[in-house]
């Protein structure tokens, strides 16, 4: 029987990582990284935000994009869930709506890598329908 993983194993991989992290220059300066927030309220979760978040974390690592992916509450765009906010280093945040895995892929390839805008941006001055 194979041994199940425990905290002792975690301590072991920690040692390797410490080395790796020391080599990474941006580790302590999150403002130099791509920051992504995934809207994770009831509406986001129900429409698949978790899959999108997993996809973003895994794919950004595979494609060597240094990024911080976190979750956030509701952004007030329930009609367009899942929504994600992307902040490229030194730029204004951009919110994308109706982000499925396919859209997320397009956002990584076009917007995050090349700064090219893609369809599905929710304008900043847009307020919820309630406030209209």
């Amino acid at each position, binding site marked *: 029987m194979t041994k*199940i*993983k*425990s*905290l002792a*194993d*975690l*301590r072991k*991989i*920690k040692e390797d*990582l*410490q080395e790796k*992290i020391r080599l990474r220059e941006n*580790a302590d300066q999150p403002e130099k990284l791509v920051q992504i927030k995934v809207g*994770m*309220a*009831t*509406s986001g*979760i*129900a429409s698949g935000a*978790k899959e999108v*978040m*997993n996809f973003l*974390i*895994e794919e950004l*690592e595979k494609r060597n994009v240094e990024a*911080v992916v*976190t*979750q956030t*509450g*509701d*952004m*007030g765009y*329930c009609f367009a869930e899942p929504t994600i906010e992307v902040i490229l280093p030194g730029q204004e945040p951009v919110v994308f709506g109706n982000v499925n895995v396919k859209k997320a892929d397009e956002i990584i390839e076009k917007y995050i890598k090349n700064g090219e805008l893609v369809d599905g941006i929710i304008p900043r001055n847009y307020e*919820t329908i*309630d406030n209209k």
Partner: protein
Amino acid sequence: MKELSLHILDIVNNSITAGASLIQVTIREEEESDSYFLLVTDNGKGIPMDMLDKVVDPFVTSRSTRKVGLGLPLLKQNAERTGGFLHIESVVGEGTTVTCRFELKNFDRPAIGDISGVISMLTCSFTDIDFIYSHSTKHGNYVFNSREVKSALDGVPVTDPSIRKFLIEMIDENLTEIKINR
């Protein structure tokens, strides 16, 4: 929502909004009484008495961005559908406990889904909050404590993708060991 783990993610987000610094998710599978209990306990700001009866009403929410709050009502509906219940206890200034019972062998009990993914996602996203997840079956008990994880990491950020991957595997293997109902 089809999976219990997604409900957990949702309810835990309520606790985070309530300013909790410690959130405990407990699942107990009790075969003798055909029960599957889910408890989410936090030390957040609590829910005032007059609000407590209303939080399971879909048209009540404390937020201002919109007028509906479906998290708790959806979970309540899912629990009641299997002959169980949802119960909330709260003390203002001390915290809130959401208790849910499902019938263990009921066909309509939602599958747990990707619980290891949810717990590690929370641990890696909210690094200032401590999460304790415990799951017990007749085969044993597993406790995941994000505080222990962080102290084992000794300064290495828990947000590193390889740590996340490790946590998912660690939780998953331990849950398989105690033969949880998936």
